């Protein structure tokens, strides 16, 4: 007999099996160990200190929000390597306009529109010119970085928002920075969209089986275009929050942001081939990526260890998912 929700056990089992439950357990385990060491050796490993926690809650959203956009796009079967360039161009647009006397809100709006346009251009290059997104966005990365230098010059631009409403991008509640709350809101919206709206199913379908999506009448171009636009928009949001946090935008920054975001997604279980992944996975992937940076910094490890550890994590994650997926199929 075929059972639906009326029989809870098989459906609950399948839900758990396909969720990011396994990576969540690993994440919680690592955090518990880190907290325990932090409490036992607070001098040598100040993991639980207020300053370390508040720094983590400020830094995590910057990679997390970008990874959210990149992850949704990867689920749709496409890549965006230009998120770093978009992040810089959009935040630079905001900073320059604000310095020129534009109100804060219109400067932010201009940055969001800029992110949206850059994301759309990636979509047009991929979906209308039919260039693979990996190549198309590799090309637009160079164009967007060059555009930043062409329009705004090579000098860093200060950005120190003041006024009643600047709190929404610079404020904090105790150790919780406002960007952490923005990240939670955006991840919640992403989860609702992916799991509880028809559009989420379309993202998974166009990424999971393009031919089937066409056969059942999904508008593939429109669906992927939405994913590109969302990715661009989220990169610009991250750029806005980063600029507000450090009070500065550097035209040469964020060059490795795209690879970090893709790494976070891979660690979080997003398939490089599209069609698979969860919002929780992206969140955990970004958190684990930040966690390794944090731990190495606290231990005073030389900088080159960081890239080596990230590399090990990516390969381990890829192997872990291959192993668990094969087990699930059996």
């Amino acid at each position, binding site marked *: 007999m075929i059972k639906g929700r009326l029989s809870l056990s098989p459906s609950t*089992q399948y839900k758990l099996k396909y969720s990011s439950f396994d990576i969540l357990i690993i994440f919680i385990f690592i955090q518990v160990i880190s907290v325990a060491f932090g409490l036992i050796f607070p001098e040598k490993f100040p993991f639980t200190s207020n300053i370390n926690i508040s720094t983590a809650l400020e830094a995590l959203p910057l990679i997390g929000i970008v990874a959210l956009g990149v992850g949704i796009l990867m689920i749709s079967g496409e890549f965006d390597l230009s998120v770093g360039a978009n992040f810089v161009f959009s935040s630079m647009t905001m900073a320059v306009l604000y310095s020129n006397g534009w109100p804060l809100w219109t400067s932010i709006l201009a940055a969001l529109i800029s992110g949206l346009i850059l994301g759309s251009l990636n979509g047009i290059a991929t979906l209308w010119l039919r260039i693979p997104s990996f190549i198309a966005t590799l090309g637009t990365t160079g164009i967007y970085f060059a555009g930043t230098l062409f329009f705004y010059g090579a000098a860093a631009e200060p950005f120190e928002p003041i006024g009643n409403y600047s709190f929404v991008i610079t404020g904090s509640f105790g150790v919780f920075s406002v960007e952490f709350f923005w990240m939670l809101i955006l991840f919640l919206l992403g989860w609702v969209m992916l799991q509880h*709206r*028809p559009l989420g199913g379309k993202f998974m379908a166009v990424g999971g089986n393009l031919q089937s999506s066409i056969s059942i009448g999904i508008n593939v171009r429109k669906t992927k275009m939405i994913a590109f636009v969302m990715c661009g928009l989220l990169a610009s949001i991250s750029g806005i929050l980063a600029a507000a946090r450090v009070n500065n935008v550097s035209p040469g920054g964020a060059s490795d942001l795209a690879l970090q975001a893709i790494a976070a997604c891979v660690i979080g279980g997003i398939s490089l081939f599209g069609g698979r992944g969860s919002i929780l996975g992206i969140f955990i992937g970004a958190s684990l990526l930040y966690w390794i940076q944090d731990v190495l910094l606290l231990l005073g490890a030389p900088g080159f260890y960081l890239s080596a550890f990230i590399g090990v994590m990516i390969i381990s994650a890829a192997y872990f998912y291959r192993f668990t997926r094969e087990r699930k199929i059996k």
Partner: protein
Amino acid sequence: MNNQDFKKLLTVNDIGKKFNGISVLESINFTINEGEIVGILGDNGAGKSTLIKVLCGVIEPDSGFLEWQGAKVVFQSKNDSTRLGIETIFQDNALVDSMSVARNIFLNREITTRYGFLSHKKMVESSAEVLSKMTGIKGIESTEKLVGELSGGQKQAVAIARALYFKNKIILLDEPTSALSVRATDALFENLKDLRNKNFSSVIVTHDIYNAFNVCDRFIVLSKGRIVLMKQRNLVTLEELIKHVSRA
């Protein structure tokens, strides 16, 4: 409209199609009636798959036209044929392996609440109900199981369940048995017979003449884009069918 017309679902009128100047379909005329199973047979390159694609709107014909229940229709996309009640099951079953059975059945036609949120509970229950009515389907303990974990026969059942749920009048199947075991093939044909008893129609494009002979009510044999034989089941022998297909 008289009673005889009412039984006609899809009429193919003088359909022709060329690719790069080469004719792949020429002067194709037939009708699919309510509650019958039509087998379209022919060798490779006979035009069977092109014909199916014309019937479901994936390919527009160069000449001729289609009629739906006596009225002329033009299919500009597959969505147009689906809206009228024609479900097409391609060789890959048009399923997404990384999604659950329930999400696949309702993909692009999801059950939503008044605020546009997915009604997961209704989709899981409805898909379980429609699958449980089908013959010979085992191993789908829950419709939350991923399609990627199903066998070829189970996937086919999910694709047919989708057609059943949306109460499509005609199901077009392109080489449905090519990836199926003997047992799954038997189950598929049993399901098509059940559908016929409920007045659904099926059109099967297949190489599998032996199985088709046991289940189809009518046969259309294509050769080089033309119909070379069209006969009712009771007016043709298996030998005659084999002769026409192999000669084609």
